[in-house]
């Protein structure tokens, strides 16, 4: 069973990974986007870390809902509402329980990823964060480690894709050959989960 502290550590580990990789995310967002994804994620997860420290929500669901709300209020861009919705929806699924099982978390993340797809009107193969989130969350049934790896692979698999959503789409054929920044940050999020799950 995973308690609120586990979720706080997940968010902190994500914040650390984002801090580490921020420049790379912005670099990736440069040829096929607008060169801000790293800065966006860093601003958002720095705020998430601060707000979690300050408010210390007591349940897994409350941690994720607060993190999601914070992302929505601080990130902007496409990734703010999308990641915000991912965490808010996952948090809603987890309800008010003080501890949640790995199965419950997996189910909740499924719902969260579904909400992202719905909000973004996107599907795997569109060269977006979903290309890391969907295989990553699917691999949770194997292990946290597998989920992190699958997300990573999914991010890499966006390189040859033609973008059908987000800014990269404006480039048409020229979007091919570049890794999607959002898929890359999604792999950080699931990598951080694998890390704190041990």
């Amino acid at each position, binding site marked *: 069973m995973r308690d609120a502290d586990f979720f706080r550590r997940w968010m902190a580990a994500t914040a650390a990974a984002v801090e580490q990789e921020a420049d790379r995310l*912005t*670099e990736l967002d*440069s*040829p*096929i*986007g*607008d*060169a*801000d994804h*790293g*800065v*966006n994620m860093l*601003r958002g997860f720095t705020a998430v870390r601060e707000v979690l420290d300050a408010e210390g929500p007591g349940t897994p669901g409350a941690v994720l809902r607060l993190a999601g709300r914070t992302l*929505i*209020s*601080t*990130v*902007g*861009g*496409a*990734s*703010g*509402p*999308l990641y915000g919705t991912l965490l808010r929806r996952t948090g809603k699924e987890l309800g008010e329980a003080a501890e949640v099982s790995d199965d419950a978390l997996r189910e909740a993340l499924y719902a969260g990823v579904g909400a992202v797809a719905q*909000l*973004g009107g996107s599907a795997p193969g569109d060269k977006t964060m979903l290309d890391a989130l969907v295989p990553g969350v699917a691999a949770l049934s194997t292990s946290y480690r597998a989920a992190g790896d699958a997300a990573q692979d999914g991010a890499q698999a966006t390189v040859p894709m033609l973008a059908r*959503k*987000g*800014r990269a*789409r*404006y*480039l*048409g054929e*020229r979007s091919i050959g570049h890794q999607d920044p959002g898929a890359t940050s999604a792999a950080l999020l699931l990598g951080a989960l694998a890390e704190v799950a041990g």
Partner: protein
Amino acid sequence: MRMLINSPETVVADALRGMAAAHPELQVDVERRVVVRRDARAGGRVGLVSGGGSGHEPLHGGFVGYGMLSAACPGEVFTSPVPDQMLRAATAVDAGQGVLFVVKNYTGDVLNFEMAAELAEEEGLRIERVLVNDDVAVPGSPAERRGTGATLFVEKIAGAAAEEGAPLERVAALARRVAESSRSFGVALSACTTPAKGSPTFDLPDGELELGIGIHGEPGRERRPMMPAREIARLAVDAVLAEPAEAGPADGPVLALVNGMGATPLLELYGFHAEVAAVLAERGVPVARALVGNYVTSLDMAGCSVTLCRADEELLRLWDAPVQTPALRWGR
């Protein structure tokens, strides 16, 4: 990095402090990033709120004032603002007549304004939205096109209607009509440099240009060897005319915006406008009004865009109506 800034982190806040100092007629909330017309609520008018990433100045903050926007929400550079900003702006300008959100068609802007609209409606405000999607360089359905120069037309004309006291439905309908009557195409002679990245967003060798660029430093659809202004104008105008507008008289006169991306000298922009006007004359498209300048920019990008709006008598009348904002002023 050749930038007149204190730090990449403070760029937007610093600019807002400068706007506050330069424009006492605007109420600038630097902390919360909302620029509001001081008399926004005074007339009992429909509120007009827009916003988007920073780096496109004077859009949108420079268009707040009499006869145009009631408020603007600047995001980080090239990053849509957050719903909190739009909600705050809507609340600040609502005089009971409802608020129209002018949204450029980007995933981020659309999603954040959508969330803001939900929150505002929960607080009892009436919200309408208009999506600006004029950039014909983007392939696919109109719903996938980006919003660029037409935003100025929408904000000016809807603002004039609101100033006259038109109700929300009519202001929104007019705004949609302008959006549907407008088409744009942009060209880059250089990339731009965002403060966060500190180097050009793409590599454009001297002697080449990018066709079909947007306003966020994205490269365009195609790279070509440099051409004379005359040929660039022909390409841009023909690209715009090839994509028939959904509304507006098909062979009526147009409003023309010949827009600089930020670093193209006005001298060049006027020369380019001469070519745009010549191509339009050749194609039998009368130009009712023309606006030439840096209005919807992309930081320090060199280049230009052409926006045409098929305008009937009513749109022209509202275009000519008085406006008094930092960046657009006439008739008053």
